[in-house]
């Protein structure tokens, strides 16, 4: 796609890491470029994705929802039905296979929502690798079921109590572990973030989402290209995985949905393209939420997986080029979409994915019924039951009625 100078997407990307990690990143880049092209690697990964993880995931037309909204046809790409419950496994299996090919016996990962941690713990169990997952203590609290899942899978879950105790801090701690144990450890970064080669490697492992969706859409709607393709954007991996297949089709409008959180002030949201500007965090040059002095800002989102101050560097380029439109969905809208999808279609989406669903709900009524909207349902909502219950309880108490099905 959009990689320009090696490791850069236009003015974004690069490798902003301490010297200790530079040679290991060079080796990782060489290994990835070599191994990922090998036929046996591709076959192994494809076999795991199909027979173990459950690919292809279905493309489902949400007819009841479409009818209710009275507009475009809405198709859901069901990554929630992938083994472990989110798109994260596509990447975790790819990187764990790569780690094994590189002779690394240990993997580490950060996790926000817990989905990437569960996916990495799963891949590590399957391939016999030792696994440590770093997770902010605030996220451990709000995604409790996933903590226990990781432990059952044999991973060590290391709580992180520094900073905001969320995804950003889990990445800090993962990088510190990696810089200390780099010779025998591979860092399975969970999104299109971090230093080269991660943004393009993670994107490549997620491309399968868009490739499948395009084939399926052609079969099921007779047109391969939707009018709109919508995905939520934490770091941005499920979005790039979906968008990659359509990026060269200018008629397909691509929409990335950031977390609008609880308000527009810095600290209340995670919409990098609303309140952010250029900076460097976690090894990459990209759009960041930060204060005047270049200190990284606190973020907020009801969904742990979107609660992060930086966006993948390739998204920064897409934004600059105008190829992808970025919008924000608030906590309230996301929770309302969660309820609505549950009640009309019998699907509990992850709160992250509920942001994409909310955007579709916002747009579909304005489109005619011969239009199609493709939504990436990146994960399932089982992990979020407690968060939704808490959110609804708090807001019912305020008496604003959120959480009642938005009919």
């Amino acid at each position, binding site marked *: 796609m959009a990689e320009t100078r090696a490791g850069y997407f236009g003015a974004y990307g*690069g*490798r*902003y*890491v*301490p*010297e*200790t*990690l*530079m*040679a*290991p990143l*060079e080796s990782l880049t060489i290994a990835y470029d070599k191994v990922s092209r090998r036929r046996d690697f591709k076959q192994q990964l494809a076999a795991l994705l199909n027979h173990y993880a459950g690919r292809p995931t279905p493309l489902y037309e949400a007819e009841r929802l479409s009818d209710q909204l009275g507009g475009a046809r809405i198709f859901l790409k069901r990554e929630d039905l992938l083994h472990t419950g989110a798109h994260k496994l596509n990447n975790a299996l790819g990187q764990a296979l790569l780690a094994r090919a590189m002779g690394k016996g240990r993997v580490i990962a950060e996790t926000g929502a817990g989905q990437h941690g569960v996916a990495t713990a799963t891949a590590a169990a399957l391939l016999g690798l030792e696994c440590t997952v770093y997770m902010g203590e605030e996220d451990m609290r709000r995604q409790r079921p996933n903590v226990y899942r990781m432990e059952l899978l044999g991973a060590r879950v290391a709580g992180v109590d*520094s*900073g905001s105790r969320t995804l*950003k*801090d889990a990445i*800090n701690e993962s*990088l*510190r572990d990696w*810089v*200390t*144990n*780099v*010779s025998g450890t591979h860092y399975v970064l969970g999104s299109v973030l971090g230093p080269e080669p991660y943004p393009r490697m993670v994107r490549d492992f997620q491309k399968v989402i868009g490739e499948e969706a395009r084939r399926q859409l052609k079969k099921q709607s007779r047109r391969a290209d939707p009018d709109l393709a919508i995905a939520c954007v934490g770091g941005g991996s499920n979005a790039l995985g979906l968008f990659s297949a359509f990026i060269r089709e200018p008629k397909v409008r691509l929409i990335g949905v950031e977390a609008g959180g609880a308000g527009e002030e810095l600290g209340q949201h995670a919409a990098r393209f609303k309140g952010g500007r*250029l*900076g*460097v*965090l*976690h*090894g990459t040059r990209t759009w*960041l939420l*930060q204060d*005047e*002095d*270049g*200190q*990284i800002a606190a973020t907020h989102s009801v969904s742990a997986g979107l609660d992060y101050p930086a966006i993948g560097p390739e998204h920064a380029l897409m934004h600059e080029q105008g190829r992808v439109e970025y919008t924000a969905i608030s906590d309230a809208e996301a929770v309302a979409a969660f309820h609505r999808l549950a009640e009309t279609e019998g699907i509990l989406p992850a709160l992250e994915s509920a942001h994409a669903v909310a955007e579709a709900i916002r747009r579909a009524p304005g489109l005619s019924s011969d239009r199609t909207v493709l939504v990436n349902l990146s994960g399932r909502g089982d992990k979020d039951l407690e968060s939704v219950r808490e959110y609804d309880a708090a807001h019912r108490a305020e008496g604003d009625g959120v959480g009642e099905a938005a009919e």
Partner: protein
Amino acid sequence: MSGLGGTSEIDRVFDSCRALRRAAFVPYVTAGDPDLETTLELIGALADGGADLIELGVPFSDPIADGPVNQRAAVRALASGTTLSGVLRMVSSARQRWSVPIVLFTYFNPILARGVAHFASQAAASGVDGVLTLDLPPEEASGEYIDALRANELATVFLVAPTSTRARIRRADELTRGFVYYVARTGVTGDRRELAPELLKQVKAVRRKVRHPLAVGFGISTPEHVAEVGSVADGVVVGSALVRLVEEHGRDAAGPVAEAVRRLSEPLRTARRGRRS
């Protein structure tokens, strides 16, 4: 700075240490921990205690290369409202009172937020002599950063690590002005009981490959460590061991820190080293 500060000042420090056949002693503290008034006093304490060069940390919210001791220092510094501008103002008053050169030890985002060129001219005007940006390897430093710091005669310090290849060591040395900083262990900053087992051998090997003086830091925390590393390096950096004292004594840290610096730098003043191998 008209040639008085910056790179030439740092060169002068290493030249005069070399003439005395000893390594330079380079203490580190985080600016603003617990507040900038205390840091100003600490710079005096470090200078009086025997610092040849001072490394001053600029606090950052997400210090990925730092261990828990320096992380906590950054949290305290940010909590007291420390900003990069505040640090530079404090350096400016310190430099009016003490002549020990100062190198900033920082992450890149605060520099980028201010604008690299703007930062470089302000830093030089405040009397900063050099800058080490932890998350800016040679590849990303080439261009704007190097040009701006050079134009202001600021030393550009680069890291070399145990993982660095021969080609990377050469590249770091080429971009360096002042001294090269060898990371004594693959890991984060923090005080350790033991030095890494192969350290002295590694330092000797790297020192033969670089043209600039070689300072060594990360994990050096006792007078014994200082003596050992000082026998093979051109500079010895002690950080977390001092930051721990600041943590313990807060605004009254100047006395204990001066005392620690005297104790830690003592081996370098007594034990002279043989000829450079």
